[in-house]
């Protein structure tokens, strides 16, 4: 029995135990324990991350004469690490006080743990797929499993889940069609066969396959213009579930794109294909899709007044960086893209958990009804601070390193517009994350929040561990770049030469150890200067400048709504003009589609449908 078997078995065990033990109060802890076991098993497979041999699963099936097998290479291992890690964080967060409160409010934490575990299993299977068929099966499993997580909250969440499933089904159809074409061409679903045939395919075939797979997998990633389902669906999930979904779920699409389009079909082919009547190649087109996926969701996030929705929109936007980096096809870009998957998962999970902590105490995530919580929930603030610095891509957090790699490759490869697009995305991110932290943690403390306290330890520890990872991998990006390098090799891309602190190159290097040390040295100087002054007395927030007036307690003295009013005077009309038009037209298409789908699904409970899907997949396994 290989390590992979053990991993999958433990994962299955997790699913079964959480599924059976719905009524057990400490089910969360069991799930956490088992996920820890999964993580340990994965770490035992750690050689993969440093260029180790591919690990095969000892089981395999064959359907219709097509063999199905599972194996882990460095890329799968890298993604699996992120998956299990974020699931563990979410699960641990939900296990303690959060779960108790959730239960009190009528939720079922066991079901949440079950669906997280199920998602993990599905993703592990997907990541381990050794051929296109198992990839598809894994893909379907992931789609349905994440649906379960999305609709768990009920109410509006089911509606958004429905919207998701319409997209997902369409995507699955596209993937299926792609598979059918491949099967026709090669007569098998094996990766090697496709890779062998790929160079011989003609342009039309390449374009068709690329677009089909890009569409099919891109939907899961929330790439434009198929992004509309994602933010709502993620935001409505209970806190830890959101963290898990936001951190990794969409990246499955990226993984599939990596495997099929970049690894098997090959980017070089895409570069060769010119789109008629334009200066763009097919790859450029995909890059522009990615670039637009950065900008538009980021600026939609700027307008959100709900913390979770704001973050969910950013999740879509950050996906664009990963794709854009990977499509540049030089060691810097692809390393940046892959590293961003890891980095994004860490800070996004931290951010969602922090927001969940705020919701846990205040019962709201409406940015206009919060404020001043830093004095009450300093640890959550710290987590969010580290998270937003990471998300905005500012040193010293890890988000900066991956973005730096992407920028650098765009500069050196000479892609000014894409570079500018990604920088605009970053700037927009800075704006909206400041709004997030300002409206929740800074400013005037609302009186109804006067007496709340920091969330309990069971919730703070996962958050703090995540933020520690965000910082450490920012300080020593070499830790992650090792794994990334192996993944690059597995993908068949040139490997990035790196040091512990970053990258060494004549064209401009990055040494985060130095940069961070100097930055903290700077902070030390600042602190020295600051504390050389006389000590400061803390004052009440009503002891404040108000044009010489006396502030009174009944006055709302906190600027939160329409935070970038000046900016909106200029770009507000663009939202109406383009973003909203795009959105509304797409929504109308989707709603008509989902209207049709509604008829189909109306009589069933989604969970039941999920069960059907699982049965079907099991049938695949056995048959």
């Amino acid at each position, binding site marked *: 029995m290989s390590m992979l078997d053990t991993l999958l078995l433990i994962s299955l065990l997790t699913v079964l135990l959480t599924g059976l033990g719905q009524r057990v109060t400490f089910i969360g802890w069991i799930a956490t324990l088992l996920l820890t076991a999964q993580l340990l098993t994965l770490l035992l497979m750690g050689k993969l991350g440093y260029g180790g041999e591919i690990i095969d699963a000892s089981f395999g099936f064959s359907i219709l004469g097509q063999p199905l097998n599972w194996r882990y290479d460095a890329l799968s291992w890298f993604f699996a690490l992120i998956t299990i890690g974020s699931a563990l964080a979410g699960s641990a967060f939900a296990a303690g006080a959060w779960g108790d409160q959730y239960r009190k409010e009528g939720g079922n934490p066991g079901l949440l743990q079950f669906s997280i575990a199920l998602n993990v299993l599905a993703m592990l299977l997907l990541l381990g797929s050794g051929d296109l068929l198992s990839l598809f099966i894994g893909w379907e499993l992931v789609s349905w499993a994440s649906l379960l997580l999305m609709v768990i909250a009920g109410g509006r969440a089911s509606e958004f889940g429905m919207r998701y499933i319409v997209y997902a089904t369409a995507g699955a159809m596209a993937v299926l069609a792609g598979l059918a074409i491949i099967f026709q061409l090669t007569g098998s679903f094996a990766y090697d066969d496709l890779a062998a045939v790929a160079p011989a395919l003609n342009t039309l075939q390449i374009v068709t396959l690329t677009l089909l797979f890009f569409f099919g997998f891109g939907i899961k990633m929330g790439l434009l213009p198929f992004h509309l389902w994602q933010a709502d669906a993620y935001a409505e999930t209970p806190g830890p579930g959101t963290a898990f979904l936001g951190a990794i779920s969409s990246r499955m699409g990226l993984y599939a794109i990596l495997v099929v389009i970049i690894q098997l079909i090959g980017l070089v082919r895409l570069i060769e294909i010119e789109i008629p009547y334009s200066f763009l190649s097919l790859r450029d087109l995909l890059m522009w899709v990615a670039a637009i996926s950065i900008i538009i969701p980021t600026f939609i996030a700027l307008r959100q007044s709900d913390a979770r929705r704001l973050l969910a929109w950013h999740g879509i936007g950050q996906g664009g960086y990963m794709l854009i980096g990977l499509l540049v096809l030089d060691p810097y870009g692809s390393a940046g893209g892959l590293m961003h998957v890891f980095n994004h998962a860490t800070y996004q999970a931290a951010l969602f958990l922090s927001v969940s902590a705020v919701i846990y105490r205040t019962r709201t995530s409406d940015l206009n009804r919060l404020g*001043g919580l*830093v*004095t009450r929930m300093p640890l959550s*603030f710290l987590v969010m601070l580290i998270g937003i610095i990471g998300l*905005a891509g*500012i*040193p010293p957090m890890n988000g900066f390193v991956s973005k*730096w790699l992407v920028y650098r490759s765009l*500069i050196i490869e*000479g892609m*000014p517009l894409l*570079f500018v697009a990604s*920088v*605009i995305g970053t*700037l927009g991110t*800075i*704006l909206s994350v*400041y709004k997030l*932290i*300002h409206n929740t*943690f*800074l*400013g*005037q403390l609302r009186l109804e929040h006067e007496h709340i306290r920091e969330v309990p330890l069971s919730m703070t520890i996962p958050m703090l561990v995540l933020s520690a990872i965000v910082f450490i991998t920012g300080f020593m990006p070499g830790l992650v770049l090792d794994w990334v390098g192996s993944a690059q090799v597995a993908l068949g891309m040139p490997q990035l030469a790196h040091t512990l*602190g970053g990258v060494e190159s*004549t064209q*401009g*290097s*990055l*040494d985060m150890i*130095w*940069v961070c040390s*100097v*930055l903290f*040295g*700077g*902070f*030390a100087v*600042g*602190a020295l*200067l*600051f504390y050389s*002054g*006389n000590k*400061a*007395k*803390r*004052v009440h*927030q009503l*002891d*404040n*400048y108000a044009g010489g007036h006396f502030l009174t307690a009944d006055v709302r003295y*906190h*600027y939160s709504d329409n935070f*970038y*009013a*000046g*900016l909106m005077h*200029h*770009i507000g009309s663009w939202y109406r003009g383009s973003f909203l038009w795009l959105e509304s037209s797409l929504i109308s298409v989707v709603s008509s589609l989902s209207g049709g789908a509604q008829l189909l699904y109306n009589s069933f409970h989604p969970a039941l449908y999920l069960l059907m899907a699982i049965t079907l997949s099991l049938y695949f396994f056995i048959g």
Partner: protein
Amino acid sequence: MANSILLTILEVILMPLVAFIVGLFMVLMMRKLAAKLQRRVGPPLFQPLYDIVKLYGKQTQISHGLIHDIGIIMAVGGYVAAEALLPVPGMDGIAAKGGLVTLAYLMMVPSLGLALGVGQCANPNGSIGISRALTAMLAYDIPFIIVIFGVAYHFGSTNLVSIIATQQAEGIAGWGISEMPILAIAGLFALHASLGKQPFEIYIAPAEIATGPMVEMGGKFLGGLFVMQTFQLYTASVLYVSLFLGGGENWVTFLIKCFAVLAIPVLIAYLFPRYRTEDLIRLVWKWPVMLALLGVAFVMN
């Protein structure tokens, strides 16, 4: 090896110190030029220093909380760190280890720190100021980043040390400004906007938001901001000099270039009122961005 590390550390300590001193004189120059335009005498030579010492020497200080403190520390510290990435004659610091993009992003740390500190003050004037400051940053960083792209692409490196070395190797003809004049103009625009002087002074705006971010800052907090201002002026002008004016061959020419670069926006600033926010965005996204893109197009061909 250990020797070179020690040397780097020494440089890293020296560079902010130099920046502070030069920055003080830049503040003085700014105020003196304003005074001359307004037909008056202006402050004495050490006025910027007096202000800072006095502010740090305040007996009672008011803080709105830990983040208020940390914000100021970050604001000063971020710039102190940024100085180590800016090569000056004789000292490279860690410029080779960071590069242009790192510097550009490191310069956002002080803004972020300030934003956090101001946020904790719970004063809407400050929050509006920060919202405007970030909006202005969104506006001027786009031309700025295009300029950085153009320069980095032209010199084939994001390493400031090698960019400067390449320029100095060829004399004035090799300077960024002679090879990329359009980019240089766009860069000057972005520099002016990043200094937050009129007509881009939207986030200080005393008559509108009571000096915006500074509203609750007193004593050492305000002192920190004054220190930050010296660094800000220094960083902006030295960066411009490094990108377009061949950096510093020696301290004399270097300082002359820095002060001359800074004098241009300052002289413009005192003759104009401030824009409204959306007008600022419109202006900055139109002309400098257009120029910068044009410049990049020239550079890439």
